[in-house]
């Protein structure tokens, strides 16, 4: 079967979903699931070995005839899209039901299908104009999804920020595609590796796609949007929408010749994103903001891999480049699955307690054992710990970097610091997720709402279980997924096509399996032994405090304090402290907020300067007609001067 059939089916179902979304929730769910399954099916067909699907039709949209293409690279992202779209749709049934959100739930369903459709079209478009249409379609749909809860001011602000930042990126893409079209004479996009004059365009793509990908320092929109959006939306945003930016970068770095410095810059930006993203994540108190910053980190890891791959490609298609690229591509999947799982988990917590602030949570494992254990699994995976999937891809990327570092040559100079930064970022990620999982789920409940939490229902649990299973599978049997990765890598650089997995990956799988098995066995054994020895329950000893109270627990701020302090120059936390004074101190308090530094310290002042300029310009429109006529005269003189100056040869 050609992949076109499920794709067409999928598009039809999603269109149906857009139409019937507002009215019929059940039909919508069926259609969305069918659409997601269709997309997934098409992607798996291609990844499984079917030839690239290419389809042209004389029918013109916007003056350009239809041209679609599904190759290994787009199929890789399409599979992720199908997965998250389906699970998210199910999750939303319980998380954002009509009964609680009568105003926004119906619209939300249509936007969801629109978003999925838009992203799908981005992936299969082989025409720049259509690519841009689909790009903007999904951007706008995502905006309306982020602002589903638009009665809340913070959500509206976050939505606008997203829209504005996205548009800034889109404008770069306008320039990118327009220049590309101007240079090649056609809107068609495809492999142009020989057109060396197109190489500088990569910088435009980097800026345009970098905004969407959340590359530091273009990530400004990301935390607020992810935190404010409903959790199923956050999940698809982080798992897939952000990856569209990554897709664009990978796609066009593969199709266009890259400038000489591109590999260096991408590696550097990736490493910086990874480090700073996770530093910000560690300092957050808002669970969903933490996850959002963690997305910045993971995109950084992916791009570090991509940058190394570009360096490798530039240095005679070095094999280590292939390793790094494979790691980056696999990390796209891994991060997608894990981050969707984590956002679903965070949504479950939010649903049960009504707050995202970690300092108001705690001890949730008792009420929500499923959510707690699945979130823990996700935390281990995203921190890149064996035996789960996050480790496999990070390991591949690092291996590529290490291999590059051991070869003499200039690329070693890029790979070595990148490897070190990734290691540090990994350690910080561990701290971040130890904190997130522990503060939220372990210990005692810090507030009443946390005390009275409840476990989520089957419709929310099911998608989480599915994603967790996928994480396990990706971690324990990476070799199964290798052909897909190899296919995508071959689409990026034909020199790296080839299905045989790199030798160490074949060993890593069984090793991880053994490790998992042993861990489970050891855990069970220790559990059994402890029980056999006899146990009794008592208050936390804590060196003898008689009345440990929930407020004495370490909070997210105190947990992150040490490491966040090292990044104080970057994070610039705002503190409001009332210290206890005197022998009988009044109430003391400590409030800390970690601002989005780039947004509030850099773009904020720049924006205010722009607004000042604007208000200066607006003062010229002061209502006196005499001055207006003076402006006409001034215009006359200016044009006259221009003509006179131009007249002089």
């Amino acid at each position, binding site marked *: 079967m050609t992949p076109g059939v499920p794709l067409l089916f999928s598009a039809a179902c999603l269109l149906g979903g857009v139409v019937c979304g507002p009215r019929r929730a059940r039909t919508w769910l069926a259609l969305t699931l069918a659409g997601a399954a269709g997309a997934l099916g098409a992607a798996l067909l291609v990844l499984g070995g079917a030839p690239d699907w290419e389809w042209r039709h004389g029918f013109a949209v916007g003056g350009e005839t239809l041209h679609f293409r599904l190759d290994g690279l787009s199929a890789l992202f399409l599979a992720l899209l199908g997965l998250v779209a389906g699970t998210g749709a199910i999750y939303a049934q319980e998380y954002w039901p009509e009964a609680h959100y009568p105003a926004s739930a119906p619209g939300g369903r249509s936007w969801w299908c629109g978003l999925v459709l838009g992203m799908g079209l981005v992936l299969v478009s082989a025409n720049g104009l259509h690519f841009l249409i689909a790009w903007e379609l999904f951007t706008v749909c995502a905006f309306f999804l982020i602002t589903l809860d638009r009665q809340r001011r913070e959500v509206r602000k976050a939505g606008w920020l997203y829209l504005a930042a996205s548009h800034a990126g889109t404008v770069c893409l306008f320039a990118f595609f327009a220049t590309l079209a101007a240079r090649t004479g056609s809107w068609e996009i495809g492999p142009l590796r020989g057109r060396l004059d197109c190489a500088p365009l990569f910088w435009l793509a980097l800026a345009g796609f970098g905004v969407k990908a959340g590359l530091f320092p273009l990530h400004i929109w990301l935390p607020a949007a992810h935190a404010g959006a409903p959790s199923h939306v956050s999940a698809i945003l982080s798992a897939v929408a952000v990856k569209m930016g990554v897709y664009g970068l990978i796609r066009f770095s593969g199709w266009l010749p890259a400038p000489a410095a591109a590999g260096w810059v991408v590696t550097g930006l990736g490493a910086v994103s990874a480090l700073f993203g996770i530093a910000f994540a560690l300092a957050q108190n808002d669970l969903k903001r933490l996850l959002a910053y963690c997305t910045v980190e993971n995109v950084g890891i992916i791009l570090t891999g991509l940058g190394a791959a570009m360096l490798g490609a530039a240095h005679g298609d070095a094999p280590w480049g292939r390793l790094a690229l494979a790691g980056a591509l696999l990390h796209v999947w891994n991060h997608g699955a894990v981050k969707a799982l984590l956002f679903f988990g965070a949504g479950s917590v939010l649903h049960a307690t009504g707050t995202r602030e970690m300092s108001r949570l705690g001890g949730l494992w008792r009420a929500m054992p499923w959510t707690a254990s699945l979130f823990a699994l996700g935390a281990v995976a995203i921190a890149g710990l064996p035996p789960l999937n996050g480790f496999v891809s990070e390991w591949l990327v690092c291996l590529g970097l290490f291999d590059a570092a051991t070869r003499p040559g200039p690329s070693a100079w890029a790979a070595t610091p990148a490897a070190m930064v990734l290691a540090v970022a990994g350690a910080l990620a561990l701290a971040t997720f130890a904190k997130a999982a522990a503060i939220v789920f372990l210990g005692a409940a810090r507030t009443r709402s946390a005390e009275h939490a409840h476990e989520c229902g089957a419709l929310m649990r099911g998608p989480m279980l599915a994603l967790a299973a996928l994480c396990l599978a990706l971690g324990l049997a990476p070799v199964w997924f290798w052909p897909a990765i190899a296919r995508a890598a071959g689409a990026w650089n034909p020199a790296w096509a080839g299905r045989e997995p790199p030798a160490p990956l074949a060993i890593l799988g069984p090793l991880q399996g053994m490790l998992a098995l042993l861990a489970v066995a050891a855990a069970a054994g220790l559990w059994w032994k402890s029980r056999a020895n006899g146990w009794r329950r008592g208050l936390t000893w804590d060196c003898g405090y008689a009345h440990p109270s929930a407020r004495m627990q370490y909070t997210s701020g105190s947990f992150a304090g040490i490491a966040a302090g090292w990044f104080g120059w970057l994070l610039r936390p705002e503190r409001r402290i009332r210290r206890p004074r005197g022998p009988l101190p009044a109430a003391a308090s400590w409030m800390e907020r970690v601002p989005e530094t780039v947004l509030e310290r850099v773009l904020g002042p720049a924006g205010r300067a722009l607004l000042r300029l604007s208000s200066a310009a607006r*003062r010229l*429109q*002061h*209502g*006196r*007609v*005499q001055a207006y*006529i003076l402006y006409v005269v001034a215009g006359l003189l200016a044009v006259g001067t221009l003509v006179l100056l131009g007249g002089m040869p």
Partner: protein
Amino acid sequence: MNETTNLLIGIAMGLNLLALGSSRLPTLILAMSAQGVVLGLMPLLIVEPPDWRVLLVAVATVAGKGLVIPHLLRRAMRTAHIDREVEPFIGFVPSLLLGAGGTIAAVAVARTLPLLPEHSGSLLVPGSLASVLTGFVLLIGRAKAISQVCGYLILENGIYLFGLLLIHSTPLLVESGILLDVTVGVFIIGIIVDRIQRAFDSLDTRKLTALRE
């Protein structure tokens, strides 16, 4: 004939200065209408012998600019009970200086422009430029709506003067169309001035600044 036309144009330029220097609105209106009449007579001098179409244009101009429009403006002035420009944006002395300087500059600029031999000795181009400039100074520098209308009309006079360069080649249809448009335009301006007087109870454009950023 150049001497006579130049004399008339000289008078028109003098009237410009009168319009710039006077604080009294009746004087301003008078200067404007007198200029209109003077210019209206010009085609009769330029085209020899004057044919019926030139006659028509001349009569229409004199009637429009010399009679109808001044009448409208005087009426508006009377209903608004104003006869003075009190606080202009550009004072009278600076206006005069600007006007005089502008006139000199107009003569200077006109010298550099390439002209047909039959126009080379004429004051048509400098006169036209001087009037346009005067019109702009009045439009920019005066606060009363009536003064601005006068300024606009002086601007039109200047353009009319320039149009005389083309009097041989412009077809009647175009000429009369232009004339009609100008007349209707001024008529409508008159109506709006009247409406403004009723709506704001004043003709001071300083009060017309509600629409702003």
